[in-house]
């Protein structure tokens, strides 16, 4: 399939380490859909939450620098990580309307700012630029019978005026995408609640409490799995799930997919190319039960080596 969509790609730090499968599945899916993706050369960390928490000027400067680097590549900026997406959009917003801060950042970069690049999350690219019809047309293995809890977390939609991805309190973009590829969605309470994000390093107890509430709500709503678009949410929901089950003496066993992994499955990409082996809560029993993967493959898949 060919189309004229082209983007500069800002993966963000997590996608080069703990969220390697998000990076892999994004590249594979976009190649399959014929969407051009060129990684921004020598991109920097956007500063994420710690930078704006204690030093807004540094955070704005790092984001402005990344946007300047992105400017050398044709097309809008595609961002996979919800936190990077939020930071880049917020920087554009603040620097666009606050002259004092803009002058300070210009001074920090010692260059005129190039902020015009349109920053887009992968969800936006799939749902709006490619379009749901075209996405649905490329499906050849619909995810029939799979009940997905779409988890937005904090930074994809909040606050109201900045990311402008979807409604801040009742977004539907994830549900629309996953329904377009044949899956079912569940209505649940915690899709916009915070998972504790970067407290996973400093105060894991906080994360365990907040993430438990999310997993519990997803399970109660009858979901088979959770879909996310943020590597930090994924880290907390997937990597910490076993620990949470132990602390609360319960069992969730909810595989946590990145959106690109589920969409990738529906267009017929192989589990290896989507990095499914890297998930801590194995998705293979669920996928075989729902007949989304051949049973004969199961033994090989379970021992998949994760991300290369």
């Amino acid at each position: 399939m060919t189309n004229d969509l082209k983007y500069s790609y800002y993966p963000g730090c997590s996608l080069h380490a703990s969220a390697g499968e998000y990076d892999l599945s994004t590249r594979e899916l976009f190649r399959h859909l014929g969407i051009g993706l060129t990684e921004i050369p020598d991109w920097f960390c956007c500063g994420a939450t710690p930078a704006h928490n204690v030093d807004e000027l540094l955070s704005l400067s790092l984001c402005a620098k990344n946007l300047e680097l992105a400017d050398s590549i044709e097309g809008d900026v595609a961002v996979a990580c919800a936190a990077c997406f939020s930071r880049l959009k917020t920087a554009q917003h603040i620097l666009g309307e606050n002259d004092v801060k803009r002058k300070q950042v210009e001074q920090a970069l010692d260059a005129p700012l190039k902020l015009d690049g349109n920053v887009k999350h992968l969800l936006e690219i799939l749902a709006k630029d490619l379009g749901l019809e075209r996405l649905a047309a490329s499906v050849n293995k619909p995810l029939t019978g799979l009940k997905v809890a779409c988890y937005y977390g904090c930074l994809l939609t909040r606050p109201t005026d900045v990311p402008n991805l979807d409604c801040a309190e009742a977004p539907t973009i994830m549900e629309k995408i996953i329904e377009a590829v044949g899956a079912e969605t569940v209505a649940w309470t915690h899709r916009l609640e915070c998972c504790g994000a970067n407290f996973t390093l400093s105060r894991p107890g906080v994360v365990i409490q907040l993430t438990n509430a999310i997993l519990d709500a997803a399970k109660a709503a009858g979901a088979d799995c959770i879909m996310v678009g943020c590597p930090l949410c994924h880290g907390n929901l997937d990597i910490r799930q076993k620990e949470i089950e132990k602390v609360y003496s319960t069992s969730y066993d909810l595989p946590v997919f990145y959106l690109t992994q589920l969409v990738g499955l529906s267009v017929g990409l192989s589990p290896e190319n989507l990095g499914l082996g890297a998930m801590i809560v194995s998705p293979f029993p669920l996928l075989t039960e729902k007949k989304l993967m051949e049973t004969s493959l199961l033994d090989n898949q379970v021992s998949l080596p994760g991300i290369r």
Partner: protein
Amino acid sequence: MKKKKMIISQETMDVDFVRKVEALSDTSVRRCFQCGKCSAGCPMATFMEHPPNRVVRLLQLGQWRRIIEGRSIWYCASCETCSTRCPNKVHLASIMDALRKLSWDADGPSKESYVQLANKLFLQNIRTYGRQYEMRLAAVFNVKSGQFLKDLMLGPKLLAKGKLKMFHSKNKNLSEIEKIFSRIEEMRKNGKAL
């Protein structure tokens, strides 16, 4: 924290600090009419001694020391729920950023050291490598915070899945990031930025 009686007088109200917060956050604390929606939706309010609406109230009364002595600002997750739901457009998440910044610069008295340590290491990593390397971040955090065994069982699991990078490289254009850091430091020295 021990409950100290609050005395509101010209001596105890420090409005200059509040003005700095307002300038940094580009929002007005005076707009708040204490509806409490921010605290109702705050996922972290349960961990704070001053929930978000009280933080704003204390600012209105110029009692900022009470805020930065506690841990509330360091337990804010920057989830932006408060800013989203405020009916009167008080950008509380930005106020929290400004409070942390001012407390951080003054090497504030808060006892919440883990969060501050994590932030410090995170920023150091950007300056040294250009990008974040989680394995290094977590390892150094454990050593510096004296929690050598924290999340030790996760390590091998993540390594086996290829989720931790043992080796990492520095950005080729690292000198540019160093310049940004040092220019900002210089601007602050010359009083050209807060």
